């Protein structure tokens, strides 16, 4: 178990009436790759700006290595921010941009040059060292912004939507590269993103924010498999929700059929609930499945590796999504309007308070 680097204790930020960040408490560990995930306006940037020192929390404390840094100005924090817009200095070359932060530390010139060269080769931009930002591609700018923050060897690097401006393919590559760089430097990263897939791929741990509040914090596996409530479940990946009622120790769907699932202790008979199951957990046929469901195909979408079916069922007002792998779909010439049966096991079912 590694030690805690950063502790947020009951952080709150108000803009007038609006609580942009509302009572967030979090511990971030040394060398962790941490992702802050949330919809637009959920308070991610606000939280990050408080960590960097550009905004002061309305209440609560930020502890770095056990010291309260809430009141330390941004230029004195061992924390650096990589801006969403990159915020490169347009009048400086790539090398000068990277050297800037070291010059502020008043390091000797030779050391600055050494560290800049080293950083240039890490981000693979040695050949472009003398270019101005406007002469760079989007991906190259992103790397300069990263290098400029990283070269200061901060205790904590904050990245606001670092890959937001890149196209899909480049994003994929950069996700791996970011992770690789974080590993080599051993610096704690906090990455803001609204892309849940990106968070799942890169992060050691993920925190989900909703309307300024922390919904859940955990490893990608925990977050994906064991969402704490229906919002967390809805936010990550695709989830089928089936409205249900607790009826003397069993769960019943709206048509009265029984849903086999582990029931949370806080649900009492008569309570409304939601049963949830991921599309990829649904299988064709009902042999040896704990739960089964008949439905009519209302739409189909072919995605290459897999096939998505939308089923109209008696148990849900919304279509139930089924995701079949190419193998599983092999030999089934599905057509819209066709009746199919799908099944899933009790283990794969989550139950939430409605």
């Amino acid at each position: 178990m590694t030690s805690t680097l950063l502790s947020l204790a009951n952080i709150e930020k108000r803009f007038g009436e609006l609580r942009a960040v509302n009572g967030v408490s979090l511990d971030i560990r040394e060398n962790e790759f941490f992702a802050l995930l949330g919809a637009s306006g959920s308070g991610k940037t606000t939280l990050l700006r408080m960590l960097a020192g550009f905004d002061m929390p309305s209440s609560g404390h930020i502890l770095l290595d056990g010291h309260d840094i809430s009141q330390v100005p941004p230029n004195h924090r061992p924390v650096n921010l990589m801006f969403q817009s990159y915020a490169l200095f347009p009048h400086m070359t790539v090398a000068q941009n990277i050297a800037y932060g070291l010059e502020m530390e008043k390091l000797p010139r030779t050391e600055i040059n050494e560290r800049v060269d080293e950083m240039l080769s890490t981000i693979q931009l040695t050949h472009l060292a003398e270019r101005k930002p406007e002469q760079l591609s989007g991906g190259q700018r992103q790397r300069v912004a990263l290098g400029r923050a990283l070269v200061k060897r901060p205790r904590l690097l904050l990245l606001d939507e670092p890959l937001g401006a890149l196209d899909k393919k480049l994003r994929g590559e950069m996700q791996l590269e970011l992770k690789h760089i974080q590993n080599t430097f051993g610096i704690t990263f906090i990455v803001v993103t609204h892309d849940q897939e990106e968070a799942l791929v890169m992060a050691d741990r993920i925190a989900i924010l909703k309307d300024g509040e922390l919904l859940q914090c955990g490893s990608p596996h925990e977050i994906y498999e064991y969402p704490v409530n229906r919002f967390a479940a809805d936010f990550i990946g695709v989830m089928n929700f089936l409205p249900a009622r607790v009826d003397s120790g069993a769960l019943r769907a709206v048509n009265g059929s029984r849903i086999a699932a582990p029931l949370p202790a806080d649900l009492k008979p008569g309570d409304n609930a939601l049963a949830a199951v991921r599309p990829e957990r649904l299988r064709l046929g009902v042999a040896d499945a704990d739960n089964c469901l008949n439905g009519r195909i209302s739409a189909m979408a072919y995605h290459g590796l897999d096939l998505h079916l939308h089923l109209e069922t008696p148990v849900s007002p919304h279509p139930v999504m089924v995701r079949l792998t190419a193998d599983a779909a092999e030999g089934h010439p599905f057509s819209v309007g066709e009746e199919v049966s799908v099944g899933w096991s009790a283990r794969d079912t989550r139950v939430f308070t409605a």
Partner: protein
Amino acid sequence: MTNRSSLRFMLLILSATFAFLYIPISVLFALSFNASGLPTAWTGFSTHWYGELIANSDIIGAALNTLIVAIVSTLAATLLGTLLAIGVEIRRRKGRVLETVIFAPMIIPDIVLAIALLSFFSMLDFRMGLHTIIISHTVFNLAFVCAVVRARLKSFDWSIVEASTDLGATPPITLRRVILPVLTPAVVAGALLAFTLSIDEFIIAYFTAGSGRDSITLPMQIFSMIRFGVTPEINALAVLVMTLSVVALAISQRLNRGRLPGQ
């Protein structure tokens, strides 16, 4: 608007307008190289009148005064106006009154500012001369510099200021190493504009120059020469003055990314 006859009509309007705008100026230009110096007859190309100019010590003296006024007031206005622009843009949301004070020097009629300053200086028993012209020119020049710099600041990416702070810079260092260098083209453009305005400014200089002959500026000199009537020397002087302002403006507008001041 692509109709053929209407396009021809538009071209006609344009030609007429440009003729109206440029014929008077071109006439001066041609006359300044006319050996006789008179509009009545072309007697051959000559730079004679430019030679006369250089030999005229009144004109040279006035030109030097103008340069001193323009350079000093431009420097002062550039410093004050740039800082003002940055300050105003940082806290833009507040202060309507402030805006009025900043815009006023640009819209107030020259004659009013001129007499206001004259009254002010004479009531304070301020000895008037080149220095009072400089002070007065700085008033409107700083407003113009401020306007040009603010126009640039509208598209300024303020996140680089935060980036600089984040990388460890104090506010004065950020100002010197990030904000000012990025603004340099606009600042230079504003300075050139101020320089042009100052070189050409007549009324305010006329009222605040005091009575001494040694604080006469070029426009004041031109004004009194014109009052005496048409002389070939003025043609040459006019062409020189015009060329100087136009060159300064052209550079200014290049630096200002193709935007004309005031646009």
